[in-house]
Each structure stands twice: as C-alpha cells, then as structure tokens.
C-alpha cells in the first residue's frame, strides 16, 4: 500500500510569493492533518480534516495559511504570501479516524523562503 505522498519534497520561494503544497493520504483514511515542523517548536498543527470537513484550524496560522481537501484523496496547503519565517518542513498525515488510531506521516516538504 502506498503511504502518504507529499509533493514537492523541496520548495524555494521568494518572499511574497504564493506556494501550494500537495498531499495524497493513505487510501481509505478519513482523517487528514497538516503540521509544520521546526526544531524549536516541534510539530505545530495547521489544519485537521475529517471526511473532508474542517475540524480544527491552527489559530496562529489562519491569516496566510489555507488547507483544503478537494476530494478524499487529495489535499493542498496554500501559503499566501510567504514570509522568511515560514521556512520549515510541512508534514501531511492521515489516519483511519479516532483518538486511538495510528497517524501515518508523509516525508514532508521542506520550504525555504528567501
């Protein structure tokens, strides 16, 4: 079975640009998560979807970050406009659903904003 697929693996953007990161969750999973990973903060929640409905939106990220689930097998994260402080690894993850289920992670997209 394919795991969580994220594209691109690396992205370089100029300050002020709009970038779109893509994610394909594990087939059949109901929950999808976007996290931002930095060395200092660890994993910070950006968005959480269940069956394509937005369940949680990371409060600190609402203004320039927008995640969408276009269908059950594809999600995007748009950052508009990008700022240098957005440089980080963005992780997409999915699970069957429920607080006791294992979360499966993609390898992430490393974003560098210059």
């Amino acid at each position: 079975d394919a795991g969580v697929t994220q594209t691109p693996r690396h992205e370089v953007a100029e300050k002020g640009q709009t970038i779109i990161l893509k994610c394909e969750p594990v087939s059949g999973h109901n929950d999808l998560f976007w996290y931002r990973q930095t060395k200092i903060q660890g994993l910070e929640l950006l968005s959480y979807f269940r069956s394509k409905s937005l369940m949680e939106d990371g409060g600190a990220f609402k203004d320039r970050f927008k995640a969408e689930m276009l269908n059950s097998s594809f999600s995007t994260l748009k950052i508009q406009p990008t700022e240098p402080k957005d440089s980080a690894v963005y992780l997409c993850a999915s699970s069957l659903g429920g607080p006791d289920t294992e979360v499966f992670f993609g390898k992430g997209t490393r974003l560098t904003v210059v």
Partner: protein
Amino acid sequence: AQSVTQPDARVTVSEGASLQLRCKYSYSGTPYLFWYVQYPRQGLQLLLKYYSGDPVVQGVNGFEAEFIKSNSSFHLRKASVHWSDSAVYFCAVSATNNNAPRFGAGTKLSVKP
C-alpha cells in the same frame, strides 16, 4: 486543548546503555498517549501507544513506556540502545474524537559507538 512537553531537546548515550526520554502531557481527562520516531529523511513512525490497562506498554524494537497518571508523564525507555536508535523521538497526546493529536518538540537521540 491538550499539550505535550518534552524537556530534553538532545540526549546522547553510549551504545549498550539504558535510555529514558521524558514526556509530560497536559489534559484534564484520560489521554491517549503515543511515541513516534523519525529517522533521517523519513516520516514519523509509531513506536507504541497507550490508553488503558497495564501502565507499562511495550513497543517495537525493545522500547517501552510507562504511564504515570499522578505525574502526567509518559516516559520512553529502552534497556540497551543500539547505534541505529539514533533518531528524533516525539511524544504525542490525543484527547477527544474531534481534536487532532498534539506533539511535543521532539528529543534528538544520538547513540555513541
């Protein structure tokens, strides 16, 4: 919402030594607790999880963790580490059915030969 603190950003141990990585959570109810590991250039992978029953839970590759409710802790342990255990370890907590898991900042483990 629930939260997790991993107080040690980096831990270095010698191969064959025992290991404890610390994790404390904050949640008023009964939590679901997890440890994940991230090897270089890999996605996070589940090591073990706990919700109820025996407070000591076994995971893969000889790892175990102990849930201590009175201390709100869920420390990860291993009796004898191998160089291949070098990775970043994340503690996570899930609460209700409508909240995403929350992760700690991670602990980078380096195992010296």
